[in-house]
């Protein structure tokens, strides 16, 4: 097949156009939104197909290449992130159509904001220019905050406000680092910058500022305090987007930064590993203590993020592959979990875990989605989570760093504990009447996404070659 780099700008322009149209046509907002979602997913599929067939792509916008112009670039890692975004995006779009019926004003705001968010995410994954990344980070942050605020109510507004301040602080850290790096290297293109990498303080200060900003935006322990309220109080499809995609975007940037400009010495890498381990254990314990389903799932995000950071102290190719795979499968599984939680709450039901027994009879599909997603999170074979954890474990054993393996295994047990806590409640005989089921489309959206998280384990042989030459 012929390689067509023009697919790259399509991934950014299609959702952007859709967002503007959805904003201009409030009466047809759902139709416009769903069409734009389909078109965007098709564009992403085209990029994935091109990268699979022809390797990394670059596209100079307006015919002006770097260092003068701004370039879009796609390699295997970007392609995988685009694919995960498209999969979660489609499921969320289908789910949101019915979920938002309860609040008549919500769709008018949701669809433009969500398509703006999708556009920002795609642009972020395709940017080769660090300042362009700053702009996409801000676009992503602003649309995500506005989506959280859609829930209304004092708790959601406070969570959105806290999220906004954290997000702005994180982006400013990135901006500060970019300005210093630009001064040191004279370029904003990450590839050129890697070739002219500065040394000593000229690298350490911007690298530290950018890493700190991204950790804040990713919500790594102990910078996670904003995450559970924001992810827990947003409307369920929004929570799915935030937990599955938005925090992965800043993690993706962290990977890019570390691949291009590896820091000297491994003190910082060790620190990230220790914070990751603390996040995995602390987040899991907090998840076990929650009474509300959505907060349990949000704390589980804090914990699962921790595993991704275990790759930094290991630092081998195997470990990076494991972290990427774990990030992808967490995206699908956590998206499915929040969508399942959305099915529970959609018909005016509350998400108190103690009362979930009434849900099982009314919504078996939702329960199946939650269980399948839980299997991937806990890392049971043959799920995508299993492949990611297996690679990380293998890397830890190869290096003789058994402490990280212990964290992975203990975290897996805790994950299984909080997943079964939910499923166990749901299987108990209920004294009251069964809850009326959520619409089938919503439940199927969650279930298919959860199937995707499990099927990712079988897709590993196809996905692995995409990362050749991308991970160091």
């Amino acid at each position: 097949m012929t390689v067509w780099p023009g697919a790259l700008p399509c991934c950014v322009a299609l959702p952007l156009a859709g967002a503007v149209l959805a904003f201009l046509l409030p009466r047809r907002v759902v139709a416009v939104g769903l069409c734009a979602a389909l078109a965007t997913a098709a564009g992403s599929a085209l990029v994935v197909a091109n990268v699979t067939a022809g390797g990394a792509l670059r596209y100079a916008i307006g015919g002006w290449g770097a260092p003068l112009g701004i370039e879009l670039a796609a390699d295997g890692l970007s392609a995988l992130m685009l694919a995960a975004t498209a999969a979660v995006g489609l499921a969320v779009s289908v789910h949101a159509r019915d979920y938002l019926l309860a609040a008549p004003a919500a769709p008018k705001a949701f669809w433009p904001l969500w398509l703006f968010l999708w556009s920002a995410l795609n642009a972020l994954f395709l940017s080769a220019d660090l300042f362009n990344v700053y702009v996409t980070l801000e676009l992503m942050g602003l649309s995500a905050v506005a989506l959280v605020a859609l829930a209304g109510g004092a708790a959601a507004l406070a969570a959105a406000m806290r999220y906004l301040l954290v997000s702005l602080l994180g982006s400013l850290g990135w901006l500060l680092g970019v300005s210093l790096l630009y001064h040191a290297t004279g370029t904003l293109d990450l590839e050129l910058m890697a070739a002219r990498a500065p040394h000593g303080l000229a690298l350490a200060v911007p690298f530290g500022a950018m890493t700190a900003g991204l950790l804040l935006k990713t919500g790594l322990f102990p910078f996670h305090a904003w995450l559970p309220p924001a992810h827990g109080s947003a409307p369920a499809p929004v929570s799915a987007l935030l937990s599955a995609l938005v925090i992965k975007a800043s993690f993706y940037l962290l990977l890019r930064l570390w691949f291009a400009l590896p820091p000297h010495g491994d003190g910082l890498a060790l620190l990230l590993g220790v914070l990751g381990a603390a996040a995995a254990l602390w987040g899991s314990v907090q998840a076990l203590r929650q009474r509300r389903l959505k907060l349990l799932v949000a704390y589980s995000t804090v914990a699962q993020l921790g595993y991704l950071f275990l790759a930094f102290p290991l630092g081998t190719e195997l470990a990076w592959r494991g972290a990427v795979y774990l990030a992808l499968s967490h995206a699908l599984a956590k998206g499915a979990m929040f969508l399942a939680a959305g099915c529970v709450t959609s018909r005016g039901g509350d998400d108190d875990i103690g009362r979930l027994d009434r849900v099982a009879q009314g919504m078996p599909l939702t329960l199946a989605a939650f269980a399948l997603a839980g299997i991937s999170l806990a890392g049971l074979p043959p799920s995508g989570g299993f492949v990611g954890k297996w690679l990380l474990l293998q890397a830890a054993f190869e290096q003789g760093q058994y402490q990280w393996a212990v964290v992975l295994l203990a975290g897996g047990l805790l994950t299984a504990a909080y997943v079964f806590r939910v499923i166990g409640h749901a299987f108990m005989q209920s004294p009251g009447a069964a809850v009326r089921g959520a619409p089938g489309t919503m439940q199927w959206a969650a279930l298919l996404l959860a199937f995707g998280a499990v099927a990712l384990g079988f897709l590993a042989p196809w996905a692995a070659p995409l990362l050749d030459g991308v991970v160091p």
Partner: protein
Amino acid sequence: MSSAPLYAAAGVALFLIGLHALVWQRHLVRKIIAVNVMGSGASLLLVALGHAGPGATDPVPQAMVITGIVVAVSATGLALSLTLRLARASGQVELPRPRDDDR
């Protein structure tokens, strides 16, 4: 001796002052102002570093600062409107303590 290092140092100082206020001030409008001060600090640093010498100015940092201003305006607008809605909904212009809204 050019004055660029002075401006760069002022930029870093503004960034740190803003950071301090963002962390320690409780009133939301003060926090929003703090973010703006930090942004100005970063912009000042960018422009100062781009000033290589008399007559030789790198245009790229200036283009970046203009873009940064646009971003800051939209972020401030969103933050202020959120603050207004929060004040109407909860009656206070402060964020609740993290533990309050946690469970």
